[in-house]
């Protein structure tokens, strides 16, 4: 690391000043690291130990003495966790698929075809993104209710896609701006039909974009509480978010099980984080929005 290399405000003449600065930076970094990771660690520690071990006269969460899956067993035996988890997986997968496909199709069309009102379309998409989900949820509830669609996977999938689609469409719209049309033209001139070109050229080149879009819509759907809470009122249709949120109200469910279900909920996102890290960060860099 050289002085002044890509660093904000690091023009430092004296080495002493440099060292003080270096140390204070490390301290800040450590503090943040602690702040960020300790809560996560707490969750893991409590999930994997029996409640008696953790709570015996005070708090001993720092050291995991013995692993136990006891909490998980309680979850699976006494609650509908498995059912909730399955529901979440189903609506999340559906919503991700729908949102991403919509985004790719719309993003491509919006970029490639010329039409008046592009500015309005862009603003509409952005406006939808700035919306509060609860504001949309109310009328959706009434509409689903009158169509007798409440407590259905379909309704929740549509609601979730409604929330994630504005951003995924915006993402793909921006992304396709960076795919030069000459790539497609090159294929057309060589005899490939437009459809074939989409398959052979456009989609492969757009891959980083639609993977980011898929990750985002996955996160929105998996994480969602508002829409699921509004659309689902029957226990067996609850998603894991809604179902688990009711745990703490039940006397028989303690912190051990709560942290255990938290751990379960974290698994799919973490799998994504591990394998698709780069795509995640690319999603953050798109536009000034997230």
């Amino acid at each position, binding site marked *: 690391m050289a002085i002044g290399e890509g660093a904000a405000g690091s023009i430092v003449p004296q080495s002493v000043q440099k060292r003080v600065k270096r140390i204070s930076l490390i301290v800040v970094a450590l503090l943040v690291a602690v702040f960020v990771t300790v809560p996560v660690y707490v969750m893991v520690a409590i999930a994997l130990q029996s409640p008696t071990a953790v709570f015996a006269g005070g708090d001993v969460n720092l050291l995991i003495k013995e692993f136990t899956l006891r909490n998980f067993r309680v979850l699976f035996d006494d609650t509908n966790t498995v059912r909730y988890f399955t529901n979440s997986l189903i609506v999340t997968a559906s919503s991700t698929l729908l949102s991403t496909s919509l985004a790719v199709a719309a993003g491509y069309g919006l970029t490639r075809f010329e039409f008046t009102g592009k500015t309005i379309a862009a603003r509409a998409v952005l406006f939808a993104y700035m919306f509060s989900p609860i504001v949309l949820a109310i009328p959706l509830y009434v509409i689903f209710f009158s169509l007798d669609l409440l407590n259905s996977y379909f309704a929740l999938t549509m609601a979730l896609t409604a929330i994630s689609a504005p951003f995924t469409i915006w993402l793909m719209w921006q992304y396709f701006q960076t795919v*030069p049309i000459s790539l497609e033209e*090159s294929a*057309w*001139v*060589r*005899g490939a039909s437009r459809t074939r070109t989409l398959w052979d050229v456009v989609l492969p080149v757009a891959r980083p974009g639609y993977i980011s879009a898929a990750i985002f819509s996955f996160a929105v759907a998996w994480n969602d509480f508002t829409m699921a809470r509004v659309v689902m009122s029957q226990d067996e249709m609850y998603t894991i978010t809604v179902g688990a949120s009711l745990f703490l109200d039940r006397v028989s469910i303690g912190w051990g099980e709560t942290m255990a279900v938290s751990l379960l909920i974290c698994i799919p996102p973490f799998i994504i984080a591990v394998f698709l890290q780069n795509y995640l960060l690319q999603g953050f860099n798109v536009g000034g929005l997230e």
Partner: protein
Amino acid sequence: MARPIHFDNVRKEFQAAGTVHVAVDDLTLTIPEGSFTTLVGPSGCGKTTTLRMIAGLETPTSGRLAFGDEDVTEQTPQERNCAMVFQSIALYPHMTVRENIGYGLKVQGVPKDERNRRIDDAGETLQITEQLEKMPAELSGGQQQRVALGSAFVQDPDVLLLDEPMSDLDAKLKAELRVEVQRLHQELDATVVYVTHDQTEAMTMSDQVILLNEGRLEQFAPPGELFDDPVSAYVAEFIGTPSTNLLPATVERREDALVLASDGFDVPAPESEFADRVGDAVTVGIRPQYLSPNGGTVEVVVTAEVVEQLGTEFVVHGYTPSGHAIDAVSTTFGSVQSGDELRVGFDPADAFVFDADGQTICHGDELTGETVSRAD
């Protein structure tokens, strides 16, 4: 098989925010089969649009386009047997070089073995055999352009189109690839249409040059003719480096002779052309290469401002007595300093005369004779 390209009153208009922009204005010409023709002109003159219409990527607003006897105006790009090399090179980033080159063949259903044979062949012709298994991102600019050329070559097209393929390359690469392109032209039995804004490329590579001016055909002729027989001041100024000097003059009658009276010098003018133009404003064009200390009978006084040395030649950028910019090129200007006053001369046979609209009245030998006929 090479075919001629016929443009018949081809017109292309674009709509942009309520106004209509005419990119190509009633273009009628025939590009001879098998020739190497360059479309040249400044940005916005319509050359790329014209090329894209040949490819089928744009459709003419009116007029017909034909390859030989076949009317292709309505044909999609997929149906025409054209190959195109794009300005942005346009290599598919997710395919290897081999797959890139072979893509067109794959689409056409050529079996794998034959495909590979032809790809290897193209690779050898363009000297990229070692790059065949790599990804485009691993190649240098020059290598990428060779891959693009290879992709076009392997299609064995009737018409080969190149859209400013050298504009992103450095001078050395340009020179190398110019040779490659010309070699390809010889090996392929195709009509080559090459678009560039660099008139040096146009002059050195082509059989014919099409110079466009804001969508209209200005001149269509072999390079030498554009240089020596320009039909307008536009052509004279665009072709040649440094640009032709254009100096204002007036047709005057002095005693018994007609002259074009300009900035401190007079050019004798023939009666046949100028008798009825007495009093008109005209422009005298003279190429810097034809201005030298022993240049000729018409003498011009130049005050030098900047002197550049290019190899063995010197370019003097200076001013005429009344402040008009003028350039002169010669091997003998080595000792000229800024501020020096030079006397250079030119031979009227080397001069062009343009009327007030920029059209050529006469030039060269015709300064004593007939009007020049425009290229078709």
